[in-house]
């Protein structure tokens, strides 16, 4: 018996955030959407058994021929249109997909309701059982701060906003979830590597030491960093980390990218400041805040040109940082307030006492670019 594909529009979730502007969805986010299909199938099965309490198992072929497919991305903000496909027998007289569609729609609604409940601090288990909540470990994992996936954007009052906060609530609502996974970017050194087990230890700057797997494609870099341990062998690692319920990193599940860094890399220097505690300056001295350091990491990654000289970064007693460059005859310092993201720039020509004084407001993109221009101009002035 031949069959045909029949599809119905099923879901049009909206991705909110700067990364999704311009009618584009990063491939890593599509990975999250792929897990949604797994969750829907399992939730539909649960819905069926819920409606048929006398049955021990779902009917044979319940999920055969059912799949979710991305059929397009709407113009404007990134709204992936996801259709549910059913394979129907050609002889079927039904104009609509099989009765099973009912359970898939119920499953969709249960997931939407659970996400809304998480956002409204209500009991998510009213809508989904604990075992199904575990799927949120992989759905929404690629979302960053300030980003969200609205599963039901048509309902502006309750759009079922999955973000880092609601995802965590959904996961922690399940007592089955002992550990959570998150995307991580870490910097550290490699004090130990085990070629038999294909694992290595990453000693995170200002953090714990955790174990990670060695992928064949990363073997050379891991070996080199291991050989240079204690002598500048710092790596930057991006991958998936496994955290306990108290948000402490336990291990690294997978490594997607790993690369060697210069020991004076600004991001390494900023990580080193994370270990400071209040009173670091002989009882005085405010420790730089995590949020402020995260912001400065973002600033350097986004705005500071790789072609410019690497500065030295020091803590200030007030809880900020002072960034310094020695360029040609100039001694340059930039005192940065990590709370308001403003900086005082002072450059002194040690030969002729010429001074350049400026104030930067790094909340303004123009000022971020101006710092690059200033450093470039000074570095080229007497080169």
């Amino acid at each position, binding site marked *: 018996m031949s069959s045909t594909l029949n599809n119905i529009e099923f879901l049009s979730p909206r991705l909110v955030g700067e990364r999704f502007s311009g009618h584009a969805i990063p491939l890593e986010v599509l990975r999250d959407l792929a897990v949604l299909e797994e969750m829907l199938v399992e939730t539909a099965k649960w819905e069926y058994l819920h409606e048929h309490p006398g049955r021990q198992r779902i009917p044979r072929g319940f999920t055969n021929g059912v799949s979710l497919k991305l059929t397009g991305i709407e113009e404007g903000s990134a709204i992936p249109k996801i259709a549910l496909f059913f394979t129907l027998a050609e002889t079927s007289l039904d104009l609509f997909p099989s009765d099973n569609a009912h359970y898939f729609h119920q499953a969709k609604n249960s997931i939407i309701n659970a996400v809304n409940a998480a956002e409204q601090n209500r009991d998510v288990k009213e809508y989904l059982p604990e075992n199904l909540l575990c799927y949120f470990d992989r759905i929404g994992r690629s979302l960053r701060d300030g980003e969200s996936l609205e599963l039901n954007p048509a309902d502006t009052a309750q759009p079922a906003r999955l973000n880092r906060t609601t995802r965590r609530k959904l996961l922690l609502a399940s007592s089955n979830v002992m550990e959570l996974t998150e995307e991580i970017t870490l910097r550290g050194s490699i004090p130990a590597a085990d070629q038999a087990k294909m694992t290595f230890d990453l000693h995170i700057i200002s953090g714990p030491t955790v174990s990670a797997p060695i992928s064949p494609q990363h073997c050379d870099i891991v070996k080199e960093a291991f050989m240079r341990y204690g002598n500048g062998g710092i790596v930057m690692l991006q991958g998936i980390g496994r955290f306990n319920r108290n948000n402490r990193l336990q291990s690294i599940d997978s490594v997607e990218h790993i690369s060697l860094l210069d020991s004076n890399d600004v991001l390494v220097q900023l990580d080193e400041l994370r270990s400071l505690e209040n009173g670091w300056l002989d009882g005085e001295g405010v420790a730089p805040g995590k949020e402020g350091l995260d912001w400065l990491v973002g600033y350097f990654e986004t705005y500071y040109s790789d072609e410019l000289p690497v500065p030295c970064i020091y803590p200030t007693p007030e809880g900020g940082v002072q960034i310094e460059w020695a360029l040609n005859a100039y001694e340059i310092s930039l005192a940065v307030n990590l709370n308001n993201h403003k900086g005082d720039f002072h450059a002194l020509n040690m030969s002729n*006492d010429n001074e350049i004084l400026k104030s930067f407001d790094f909340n303004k993109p123009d000022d971020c670019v101006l710092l690059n221009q200033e450093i470039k101009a000074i570095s080229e002035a007497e080169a």
Partner: protein
Amino acid sequence: MIDSTLMLRQIHPSFIKQGQITSQAFRPTTKDNSKLSVYDHDMISAEKAYEHYTKELLKSSAGIMAVNVKECNELNLPVLSDPAPFPEHALIDFSEYSYPQSEKLAKKLRQKAVERDWLYVCKNRFDSL
């Protein structure tokens, strides 16, 4: 205290990166009442000043650098004996200056101190200097 008298400055470990010393090490912090604390080298050696600072005052130091009285005076920074906390204590007075003048003067002092090089380095900190 004469022109050539060295004023010993303890350098906090957090004020050194890649062997470079921040200008902050040579200007007073807000708690210092605009005066930079130093030791009078005519009265105490660099090694003894380090021991006093780290073992008696229980403060952190990676080592000692120095500027002399003449270098301070040329920058219009008065140098004052201040034996109240302990006999060898002295002050470089920045009270006439606020930011950014104090930052300029700190860079000038650092230049002189770096040209003179370390007078004493904590033994287990050679790697970071």
